[in-house]
């Protein structure tokens, strides 16, 4: 039988790094998408996911064995992505980073190979969505990201973000309407 996430966390708490492998295998894809929705850059998102697992290993001895692992990792990913995004914004002001070619970025972001038109539309939509998401308050954004990019159930979002179900519903409702206002006229 496969060890549960909690078993793996218990092993990490004992300093057993081997437990990182199966834990990562289970969670890294969805954490990557969450980080990507905040950072919109494949390298940055990958670095963020890497840091999530570094932090998970380092914090394992203090981890509460009663809490769920998935939501805990998700919280780390969101907080770390927000910090990273802010640092990135500050750095952009100070330095001019090498810009990734837009076409290449698309190629790295999508697993399939859409037509050039669809790719172009996807890029335009992606940029507008990124801008609209940046304008959302922190809580609304987190709820929206977990619903839209991770397809989490509302109850799961509530557990992950430590909110009541009612707050999750209102936050999602507000976020959806703000997004609609900001994306109006795109198509």
């Amino acid at each position, binding site marked *: 039988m496969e060890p549960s996430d909690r078993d793996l966390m218990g092993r990490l708490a004992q300093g057993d*790094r081997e437990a*990182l*492998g199966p834990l*990562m*295998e289970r969670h*890294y*894809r969805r954490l*990557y*998408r969450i980080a*990507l*929705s905040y950072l*919109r850059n*494949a*390298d940055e*998102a*990958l670095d963020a*996911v*890497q*840091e999530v*697992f*570094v932090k998970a*290993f*380092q914090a394992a001895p203090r981890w509460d064995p009663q809490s769920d692992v998935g939501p805990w990792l998700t919280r780390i990913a969101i907080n770390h992505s927000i910090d990273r995004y802010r640092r990135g914004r500050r750095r952009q002001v100070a*330095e001019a*980073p*090498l810009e990734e*070619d837009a076409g*290449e970025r*698309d190629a*790295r*972001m*999508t*697993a*399939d190979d859409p037509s050039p038109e*669809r*790719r172009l*539309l*996807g*890029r335009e*939509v*992606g940029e507008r*969505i990124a801008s609209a998401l940046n304008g959302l308050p922190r809580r609304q954004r987190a709820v929206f990201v977990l*619903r*839209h*990019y991770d*397809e989490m*159930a*509302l109850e799961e979002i509530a557990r992950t973000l430590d909110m009541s179900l009612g707050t999750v*519903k*209102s936050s*999602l*409702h507000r976020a*959806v*309407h703000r*997004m*609609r206002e900001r*994306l109006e006229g*795109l*198509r």
Partner: protein
Amino acid sequence: MSGLFHRGARRRTSLLAMGALAGREADEAQAHAASCAACAEDLARLRRLRELMALDPLRAAEPPIGAAALLARVNARLEEAAAPPARFAARAAWLLPAGALAAGLAAFLIYRAWPTPTTSPSPAPPPAVVREAEAAVPDELVRRMERTMTREQTARYLDEAQDLLLTVAAPRPCERQSKRVDVEDEAARSRQLLARRALLVGMGGEDVASVRPVLRDVEYVLREVASLPSCAREKDLQAIQREVTRRNLLMKIDLMTRELKG
């Protein structure tokens, strides 16, 4: 219909459009939208929004590397994180000769500035200007030497990174696995270089500010190499090679090392 009820219905419509309702809740929201023109319009708009958002390429994004490669990166990072005392020791060891050299140089300067003893066995105390120089020169010299050494170390680091990237471009076949290439040494050297890179940045942030973008690119590629298993797939190596070419990394390293060496 009360305003409060309608606010609740609007909220349910939003959740329905986002696919966040199921079962009875979804049926009720659907039934309400069918009997309320404003809600039906709302639902249609939000469904268009959802369709539009489904075009966002990020929803289908896959991490550019697999779990095994990410695990190797995490392990490399944990080793790096566990190294601060060693880094501190390395820094101290590095500064020690610099400090000793600076002190020697300062002593020499003071000796030259000191009046040469003639007949009197006990020389007169040094003039105030010499005493000031004695206090000021070492710091200034140490700072200048630190800067020079940081730049030299950075140039050496970049040289070695470039050498590594060239080695990676011509890998040996792996004896343990067919159709794979042996990059065990290169991955280990990358990890060592990454540890040195952390030291360089910690020591002379401003002294190497102009080369920071290149250092960042080099770091990215080194992390990729460090994350490779000892018998790597050729296509993973080719991907790294493409990244090196795309970033014009070898040429940039040449330019930057020349600038650092003055």
